């Protein structure tokens, strides 16, 4: 387990809490400049990850995996390649991806495509309309079809605690695994939310460990200072 810096703890005090031996902190939802709406460069994310002490970062850029793939070798933590996919009825995250998925699919098609490459279907901010949430009808449909592995019960950008609580209740009622993530669009957000869980290997191990996970986090959505955009190839 990496040690968070005092500056990171000042931003996200829960980083100071001890972690059981053999456990890791996994941020299940984050963005980089490959997302288009984030300006976080590779250098900045390397620095932020080191400061936060996050062990595993799921990089879930909007409709892109190129950045996640590229950063796999360069970050001072493990990287799970993911994609936050715009579907016709809202956003779905695929984790442990090897191929870029097309956007604008129907939710069932998107979830099936994630599963087809051995990925994990994760529903971000399921009840937050400010975050392009998957519609409730589509969520119910996917859950009914057994196409959801986990849902996000703490999204650090969701400003209403009640919406995260609603997601947690939904997870319990539907026997879904609970995840958490910073939804970081700026470097300092890394560490705002994550799950603490036993270390794992691969998607199956990830899901197994997630059963014991403790979602941790707080609302953190500081405004981005203006800076010129960099548009990398996706």
């Amino acid at each position, binding site marked *: 387990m990496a040690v968070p810096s005092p500056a990171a703890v000042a931003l996200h005090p829960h980083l100071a809490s001890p972690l059981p031996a053999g456990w890791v902190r996994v941020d299940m939802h984050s963005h980089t400049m490959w997302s*288009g*709406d984030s300006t976080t460069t590779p250098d900045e994310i390397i620095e932020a990850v080191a400061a936060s002490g996050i062990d595993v970062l799921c990089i879930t850029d909007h409709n892109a995996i190129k950045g996640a793939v590229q950063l796999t070798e360069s970050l001072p933590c493990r990287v799970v390649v993911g994609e936050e996919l715009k579907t*016709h009825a809202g956003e779905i995250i695929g984790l442990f991806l090897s191929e*870029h998925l*097309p*956007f*604008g699919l129907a939710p069932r098609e998107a979830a099936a495509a994630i599963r087809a490459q051995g990925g994990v279907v994760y529903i971000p901010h399921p009840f937050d309309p400010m975050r392009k949430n998957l519609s409730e009808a589509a969520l119910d449909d996917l859950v009914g079809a057994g196409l959801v592995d986990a849902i996000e019960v703490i999204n650090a950008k969701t400003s209403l605690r009640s919406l995260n609580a609603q997601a947690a209740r939904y997870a319990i009622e539907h026997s879904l695994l609970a995840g958490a993530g910073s939804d970081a669009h700026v470097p300092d957000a890394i560490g705002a939310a994550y799950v603490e869980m036993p270390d794992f290997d691969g998607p199956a191990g990830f899901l197994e460990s997630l059963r014991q996970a403790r979602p941790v986090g707080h609302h953190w959505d500081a405004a*981005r200072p*203006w*800076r*010129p*955009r*960099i*548009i*990398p*190839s*996706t």
Partner: protein
Amino acid sequence: MSELLEIADRIAAQARPGEQVEAYVSRGTETSVRVYRGEVEQFTSAQSEGVGVRIIRDGRTGFAYAGTLDSGVLNEVLADARDNVTFGTPDEYAALASPDGVAVRPQSLWDERLEQCSTEDKVRLALDLERMTLAGDPRIRVDSADYADGAGEAAVVTSTGIRSSGRENGCYVSVSTLADENGETMTGFGFAVGRDPFALDSAKAAKEAVERATRLLGAGKPASRRTTVVLDPYVTAQFLGVISSTVNGEAVAKGRSLFKDRLGDLVASPLITLVDDPTDSRAYTATEVDGEGLAARRNLIVEGGRLNQFVHSSYSARRVGTVSTGNAVRGGFRGSPGCGCMAMQLVPGNRSPEELIASVDDGVLIQMVQGLHSGVNPVSGDFSTGASGLTIRNGSLAEPVREFTIASTLQRMLMDVAALGNDLEWLPMRATGLSMVIHDVTVSGT
């Protein structure tokens, strides 16, 4: 309408000595239909009515509203607003508008054909739009096809002598497209705006949505350089939306505008004449009266490149020692009016978009920008935004390009405008588009 005025009259007449009382009374309906794969996916039909009461006494403002016009509730709203005055922070500029002698310019903002349009017809318009779009190209998927309309009437009466009312309706269809080829997906969109749903040009909306998505297929990154860009009308309208915040009197009064000390200065190319004209009934946001009940009017913001005026509500005007320009905007009976542009429009040039493109040896047609609002530094005017479009080479459109930024400053961009098109395009927003040629913009690609 007369009933709304009567209700507002009754409330405003109850002003006590030392009080200013404003009653804003409105009714409205809206419909939206979204179809997907030949089925209605969402249908919303909503009605609302209500009253908002603002009372000002000794510089303190109290406001209350109710979502009903029930006569038994109106006095409660008035009493609540009066109670709320005691909680208000004194503001020496707080006051209601007073009649300013500017006559209301009657417009045709109400079309009975929209009132007569059945729900079935509205659904059919959305379905037809989806069908026409899909028929345009086999590589096209439709993300959503929508029909939307709204109709509203409102009355404002104040104890300071304002007594006005108006009504307007409007509708539009829009379609979002995805085009797939060789594992890549490109997006497009198309609109048609009007007041008569049976006259909406859905075929044009469908055609544009198909073209916008398919012509980007195979796009690569352009070479980085300073070059000429031609903004698509929709992109121009988005930039006007950003510029509108810099000429907003409230921003000026608070010292937050780039142009706060520039009145009378040359701030744009002499080709630029920019008006905020809610009296042009072709604009989707046209109106006869503003949110305080003053006559809407054509305001000349920039004339021949020179900054002529800002837009003001009576409040922002008072703060800077001028008069309202009829630019009080309010979101309905639930809130107090603010200040804002209502229907921005560039006075068009005399050349078609094709002629504009033919005049460019090397450049880029900017079809879409991403994240423009967050891409503009409101203090410095610097902007840097992701973009996609088509290369212009020797006066003709050439290969598609994407994943690049365009960057400049708003101030410099306005000065560098080299030509304006004659292709005014009405959009469901507070700005109208046209093609615009700008020199010396930084394109950052490879």
